[in-house]
């Protein structure tokens, strides 16, 4: 936090990305890499 405080943080930060939803996983297995195959 000390290092970052020296940097000038933006007054307002807000961003959002969107895509086709493809979420399929549950926490028993990692489904992260779309190209595991």
């Amino acid at each position: 936090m000390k290092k970052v405080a020296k940097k000038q943080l933006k007054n307002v930060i807000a961003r959002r990305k969107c895509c086709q939803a493809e979420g399929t996983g549950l926490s028993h297995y990692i489904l992260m890499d779309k190209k595991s195959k």
Partner: protein
Amino acid sequence: MKNDRIPKAVDKAAPSRGRFVNTGNGPTIQPVEIGHATHVALVDPDTAFWSLVRRDQLGDALNDSPLLRAYRKKSKTFAEEMRMLRFGLKPSAVYFNPTARCNLNCTYCYIPEPMRRSGPQMTTAQLLDALARLKAYFKTTVPKGRLPQIVFHGSEPLLAREAVFAGIEKFGKDFRFGVQTNATFLDDSAIEFLTSRGVGIGLSLDGHEASIANRTRKTWEGRGAFEHVTRAMDKLRGYHGYNVICTVTTENMRHLVKIVDFFHKQEVPACMLNILRCTLPSSRKVKPRDADAAKYFTAALDRTYELYKRTGRKLIVANFANILVGIIAPTARRLMCDISPCGGGRCFFAVAPNGDLFPCSEFIGLPQFKGGNLFKDSIPQVLTTEPFAMVTGRKVEDIEPCDRCAIRHFCGSPCPAEAHEMNGGMKQLGAFCEFYEEQVRYALRLIADGKDSAFLWDGWDKGTKTAFDASTI
């Protein structure tokens, strides 16, 4: 708001121009304390829109600010996006238990002990028949160009190795396969078979040394699995499709930083530090307190950042990365436990060794949640049965205090199996709340500090578009 006309869409709802936040047709924007030195969060709970503003500018931000004016233009789009994510998806994955049996007797397993000792196991012919049925079903739900996913899970799926490998061999072009294993049967030939076919391999390990790891993961006779798992980790080094799951309990939470060090040293590409699921009573013996678990968990996340800065190599903590992605790009999340309704019964379902269908693996030990049988019933009909509807209908708007929680779409109030079994119903909380709060606060602090990309896997945002960016306002 400069526009004095009442928007048509809200004409009938209420004669309000929506000029102010939190009244009439104005947006609902809740301030959220995130424990950051200079910034505080503003969140619209329904659309999962968030912003981080300087504390000394909070009042201005909530007035007729450029931020809010820009958000008003997007709020309906974001609301529709969340509706689709929460209610518009179809199944594209199956958690497939080819056997009920396991050679381990882990403290927190969600499969009841009698099943794990002597439950059913699929033959090769039954497993191939099951995969053929699933292939036919997924042709109706998964868009062309995408492959549905089959994750062989347990109990210990490699007890049914011959059947599992036959299925992977025969249906290799029809599914993306994964195996979650305790590694005790993961010999050289199994590793060669799986890695040469690009199968995802998940290992389970709860510690950086045997004395910790074996507390919760051991055979019926009490022998730990640590040696097997570390041997497999050595063999899998460099294979990008492998990962390790560590379940966080009272038995290992104090060692999470050392566990992260160990995983990073072993060059594990990704891990999960999953907070314990408390579905069955036996698991609750090792349930940590929320605040304790959060303290050690966030310390472990801090360590992954230090390791990345020091070595240039990331250890992705996938369950946390998914929270971050759920904040930055809600529709890009991979894991569906932290959205409500959860993915159980709508994005994926589980197949038991006798073909019985459940909304999620977590329910396999709970007969009342059986929706039908893969070999006897139509899958689309099973998805609409009462046991499935109980899970797919569980939503944060019906749960107290989630119904008034600003971060309800970054947390999702997991897990329905826990809520039902531990707390008595689908409208109850699961086992943890403050732990999830702290996880989201931590994620928002990272975003405020511009550190978030250090916690995300490379290429996570491929295929995404920017829908909102305050820096362009």
